């Protein structure tokens, strides 16, 4: 963003020049407050209204990643937050800098990712005058943030920053935006030191401890149940409760399914795991939901892509819903036993109940039969490289241990279906908002958080072209991210829906003209490859995953391949199409 030189700023600089050294300015307070919160990585992009903040950062450095677009910065922060469990920190300037963050903020809100976003704002005196690079970002982001602030006085800055980090990272995590007018960054702080203020948020007291009476009801329901099922969502990951979950299901023998975002809560090859449920879920998972007499939802929000038509969702089940956000309970599905609380505390309480292995052998046997009779599958008719084959190859070459990121669409669903995760917090995908262009920058953030892990960004040829400018960061920051483009020369999911529901009228969904991705990689000084068949891909992955350098691989895959099985929109989970035995 270009630099704004206005009268206010010159005034501020004049005042700034006359300051005795011991006095802190708002910008110094900002940096110190970040340090107090333990911030060790910032994703950002400078501009006029944040010049004072960047100047303070220059004098008092915190590691900072300079993305090439604000959207790249915030998606990287999301990836960082998802795999590290820490709060992602983003800085952007006023006006366009701030509005470029909007997609990422909405994405983080939908997928409950803890972010604190700092935006510059024009000076207080000119707010509301349509000043240069002014945008009402607090108004714009109100419905897509957990909370937001505009700083009115420099004295409030430490308190607001402390509250912002607390709100973002506790309860149900989410993005918090702090808008800092330029004059606040230049203003002199009244005292020479910052006192860390005690939190005073009477309107924000998230319930983390579940009600034990309710937990006991779950115990009784389990004892009575013939066909119990656990649905584990991202809340289990946010609550770091995967270990407890696995312990609980092994103790009781209850089968488990996942939401898209819950993948990784339980190892992908666990015998009690039925796979992902929902629109492109497995046959066994969806049928288990249809047949279950007790459905225990832990940390999922009964999203429409999971439930399908609500009328036919879990028709036989008593529903238990454990969620840290009370507003999610009863929102979409009537709940018999609501439990507000943290997933980890809830599962720990469940573990304290006197429950032994349940006698549900006929249920688990019938599910196991479904799982083996109707597995996820694909068949290679055209003999071209199939996207599913690429995912399975990557799975094999990374032993299921990689951190995997995706955008939204066909490649996302195939990755969810065929990359079976061994560990929690290795899966970074844009679930709720479904953001194209998310996966690649998110992989950058994930790699920064976990420098020694293998990070794979699966993207489509469409989505990758939305944020590919961040290729600059791979060489610059020495990030060995492997970018794997499942290139079907079309917007695959759009094309699939047009094929299925719009009589093959492929309106604006084909991308026959594309850049040479290999040359593009070379332009950014990283290794680029193109593969068109299985053997070459196998050979190449062997080499690429043995290397600690970044790579971009253009996998030319079959264009007409579709994601199956599928629950068509408006249909119930029992009406799956494309199930093959």
């Amino acid at each position: 963003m270009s630099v704004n030189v206005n009268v206010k700023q010159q005034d501020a600089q004049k005042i700034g020049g006359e300051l005795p050294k011991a006095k802190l300015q708002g910008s110094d307070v900002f940096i110190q407050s970040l340090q107090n919160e333990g911030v060790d990585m910032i994703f950002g992009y400078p501009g006029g209204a944040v010049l004072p903040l960047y100047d303070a950062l220059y004098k008092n450095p915190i590691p900072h990643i300079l993305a090439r677009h604000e959207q790249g910065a915030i998606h990287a922060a999301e990836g960082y937050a998802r795999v590290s469990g820490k709060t992602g920190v983003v800085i952007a300037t006023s006006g366009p800098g701030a509005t470029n963050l909007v997609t990422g903020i909405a994405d983080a809100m939908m997928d409950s990712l803890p972010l604190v976003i700092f935006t510059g704002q024009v000076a207080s005196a000119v707010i509301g005058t349509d000043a240069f690079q002014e945008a009402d970002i607090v108004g714009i982001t109100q419905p897509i943030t957990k909370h937001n602030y505009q700083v009115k006085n420099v004295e409030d800055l430490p308190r607001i920053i402390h509250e912002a980090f607390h709100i973002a990272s506790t309860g149900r995590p989410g993005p918090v935006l702090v808008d800092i007018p330029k004059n606040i960054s230049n203003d002199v702080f009244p005292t020479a030191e910052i006192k860390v203020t005690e939190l005073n948020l009477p309107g924000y007291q998230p319930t983390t401890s579940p009600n034990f009476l309710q937990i006991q009801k779950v115990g009784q329901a389990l004892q009575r149940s013939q066909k119990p099922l656990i649905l584990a969502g991202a809340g289990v990951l946010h609550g770091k409760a995967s270990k407890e979950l696995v312990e609980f299901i092994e103790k009781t023998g209850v089968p488990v399914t996942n939401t898209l975002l819950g993948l990784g809560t339980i190892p992908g090859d666990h015998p009690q795991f039925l796979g992902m449920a929902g629109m492109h879920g497995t046959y066994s998972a969806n049928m288990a939901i249809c047949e279950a007499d007790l459905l225990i939802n832990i940390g999922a929000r009964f999203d429409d892509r999971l439930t399908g038509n609500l009328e036919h969702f879990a028709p036989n089940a008593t529903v238990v819903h454990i969620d840290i956000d009370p507003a999610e309970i009863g929102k979409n599905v009537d709940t018999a036993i609501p439990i507000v609380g943290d997933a980890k505390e809830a599962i720990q309480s469940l573990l304290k109940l006197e429950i032994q292995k349940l006698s549900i052998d006929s249920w688990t046997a019938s599910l196991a039969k479904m799982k083996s009779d109707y597995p996820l599958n694909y068949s290679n008719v055209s003999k071209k490289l199939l996207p599913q084959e690429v995912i399975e190859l990557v799975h094999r070459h990374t032993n299921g241990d990689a951190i995997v990121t995706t955008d939204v669409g066909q490649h996302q669903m195939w990755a969810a279906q065929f990359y079976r995760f061994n560990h929690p917090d290795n899966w970074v995908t844009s679930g709720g908002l479904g953001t194209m262009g998310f996966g690649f920058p998110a992989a950058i953030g994930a790699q920064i958080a976990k420098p020694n892990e293998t990070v794979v960004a699966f993207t489509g040829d469409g989505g990758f072209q939305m944020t590919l400018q961040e290729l600059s960061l791979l060489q610059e920051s020495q990030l060995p991210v492997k970018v794997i483009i499942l290139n079907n020369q079309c917007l695959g999911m759009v094309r699939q829906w047009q094929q299925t529901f719009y009589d093959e009228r492929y309106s604006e969904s084909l991308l026959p003209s594309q850049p040479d991705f290999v040359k593009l990689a070379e332009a950014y000084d990283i290794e680029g490859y193109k593969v068109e068949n299985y053997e070459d891909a196998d050979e190449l992955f062997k080499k690429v995953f043995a290397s600690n350098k970044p790579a971009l691989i253009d996998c030319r895959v079959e264009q007409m391949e579709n994601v199956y099985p599928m629950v068509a929109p408006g249909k119930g989970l029992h009406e799956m199409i494309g199930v093959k035995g």
Partner: protein
Amino acid sequence: MKRVITTTVINQSGVLNRVTGLLMKRQFNIESITVGHTEKTGISKMTFVVHVEDQRKLEQLLKQLQKQIDVLKVNDITDKAIVTRELALIKVLSPPGVRSEITSIIEPFRATVIDMSKNVITVQVTGDPEKIEAFIDLLRPYGIKELTRTGATAFVRENQKAPAQQLSIL
């Protein structure tokens, strides 16, 4: 169904916007909304009258309001013993020929004339919304030139007859 909901909020800038924005985002229809200071500094009270389709929608509304950081307390007081008051200002055409007739309507409603010109009088009336409705209906045949209403504000009565059923906020 029509519900009367009160919320106690921290009086931060933008809190009204936050609450009405939330109602808009979740597609709730506000009939009226009033805001004002309370006996505590920095704390304001809002009273909404909203239309909701069913019990589930209502529960969502209460929970979503409660989720706001600046919202301290949310109550659905519809089914409690409450006192509700609203104020309306009405300009009604009153040529000399019908003026005394209009005055005779005003009196039993304990409304007051607060301004008068040659052919128009301005009437102020307070009371619960139903009373105000009835009053407006009676004046309408004479020709209402302008009308403005504050929306309802409400208190729960000190003495409740029987424990009223209230939705619990989980």
